[in-house]
């Protein structure tokens, strides 16, 4: 009897979710006795809440957000990593006047509310002798590239390097990215998978992550075949942008999804605490685990 797992993506299906879809299409979940249902939300803030409330089993979320969620009392733990590097970047027009971050003085920066763009920007700007007050921040929601392309803002933060850069390229106005981890922000996992804290001993979760690992393996071993599998039942995804994003994301997937680098998580917690985003760095084990291997299946 197959057991159903409900997995909420962080947003609409996109190449960032490739390992999940490959595991699904290749039947790796089924091999583990799981039926996985992937659900797309329109608001990335909802999935963690719904997992915490027990309405879904797993959710795709972001490492930086996890700290805020845990601090707010959501009983969540990270159980796997999907994308192991930051994707976030500060993007400007390649042919624009901004060559270094220092040129941003007096400029306007657009962002899609993610919750901690202040912390990122403050860190990045400080290295170039600027304070947050030297720039104007404006929420542009989902119009990151358009607002940049139309000249309404001088830069955007929260753009994904695998995505917005290609998007701008295709629009004929290439962008220049300043990578957060190169500008003083400690590296982190962009996409992680979270579960309810009490459920970490649920053997289905380990089974799920094992299947996910097989998915990633197949993905990196057979990128072209994987692409075909990805777009097979989803023609709306089959376009040039996704094709490029696919290639750009491949090297960033966690090859060992279950593996946890505890010190790296602690480092980021310290960073956030330092930035005043959280009151204090909490114990890593309270919000991130490596799932135990279980013999009982």
């Amino acid at each position, binding site marked *: 009897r197959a057991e159903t797992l409900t997995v909420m993506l962080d947003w609409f299906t996109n190449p960032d979710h490739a390992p999940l879809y490959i595991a699904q299409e290749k039947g790796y979940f089924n091999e583990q006795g799981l039926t996985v249902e992937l659900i797309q939300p*329109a608001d990335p803030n909802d999935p963690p809440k*719904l997992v915490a409330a027990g*309405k879904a089993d797993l959710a795709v979320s972001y490492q930086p957000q996890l700290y805020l969620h845990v601090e707010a009392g959501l009983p969540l733990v990270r159980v796997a990593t999907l994308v192991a590097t930051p994707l976030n970047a500060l993007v400007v027009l390649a042919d624009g006047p901004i060559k270094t971050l220092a040129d941003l003085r007096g400029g306007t920066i657009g962002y899609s509310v993610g919750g901690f763009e202040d912390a990122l920007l403050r860190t990045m700007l400080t290295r170039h002798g600027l304070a947050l007050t030297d720039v104007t921040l404006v929420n542009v929601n*989902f119009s990151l590239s358009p607002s940049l392309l*139309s000249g309404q803002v001088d830069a955007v933060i929260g753009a994904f390097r695998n995505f917005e850069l290609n998007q701008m390229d295709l629009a004929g106005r290439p962008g220049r990215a300043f990578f957060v981890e190169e500008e003083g922000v400690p590296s982190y996992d962009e996409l992680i998978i979270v579960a309810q804290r009490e459920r970490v001993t649920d053997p289905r979760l380990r089974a799920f992550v094992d299947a996910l690992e097989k998915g990633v393996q197949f993905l990196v071993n057979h990128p072209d075949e994987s692409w075909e599998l990805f777009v097979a039942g989803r023609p*709306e995804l089959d376009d040039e942008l996704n094709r490029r994003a696919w290639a750009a994301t491949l090297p960033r997937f966690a090859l060992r999804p279950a593996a946890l680098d505890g010190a790296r998580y602690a480092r980021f917690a310290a960073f956030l605490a330092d930035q005043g985003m959280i009151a204090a760095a909490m114990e890593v084990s309270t919000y991130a685990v490596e799932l135990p291997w279980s013999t009982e299946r």
Partner: protein
Amino acid sequence: MRRLGFLLTFAGIVAAWQGLVSVTGVAPYILPGPLAVGRALVLHAGALLGHAATTAAEIALGLGLGTGLGFASAVAIGYLRPARRWLMPLLVVSQAVPVFAIAPLLVLWLGYGMVSKVAMATLIIYFPIATSFIDGLRRTEPGWLDLARTMTAGRPGAAWACFRHIRIHAGLPALASGVRLGAAIAPIGAIIGEWVGSNAGLGYLMLHANARMKVDLMFAALAVLAVLAVALFVAVDATCRRLLHWLPEGLPTEARTDWEEQR
């Protein structure tokens, strides 16, 4: 003749659109021209139709439920004094709540299926219907009510009989205004409903296309939605007018041409 007028209007809108694009020189990733959108329409015809069917179903259900609920709330608010105190502020507040604030609640209680989307669409449609109808109920000719009161005085249920047979009928024109309005905003209701979490529907397609900057596909979906909206509006408008045939209606210059039918 009327069909020709329709085509002319349509052509005019497309021409205006092309003109706008040409004159402002707006980039195609911000506002694509009709040609690009036409191409996307043809290219993705299958997907568009599929998603349109989903959205149409949500719209129909939302409009139906919204009308039913709006009618019922208006009757409750109009007839029951306590309902006026309790329900009305609640209704007003319900309009001010952004989806993203209650989307998790909706999902929690109604799941990811069509139900939560229809619920959202219903919530959005139903207020205009309810308040229009309430206004209609308020503005009943007092003479009719007096007459009905003398006819039912001293009977149990007299107040309800007057309400049901006089006020509700007298309020129907206002209800029709509300339903017409509801029909016009039903599409956006469904789209916002799809915001709650979905993997089908024109709203999903648009969000998706928007996020991918496939602006031509997004506008193609928008065009389909617009057609849906206008068709729905025209149909609802015609139905309301047929049902309210007893109502003297008309606008200047119309009056002169159809003496025979009118008044």
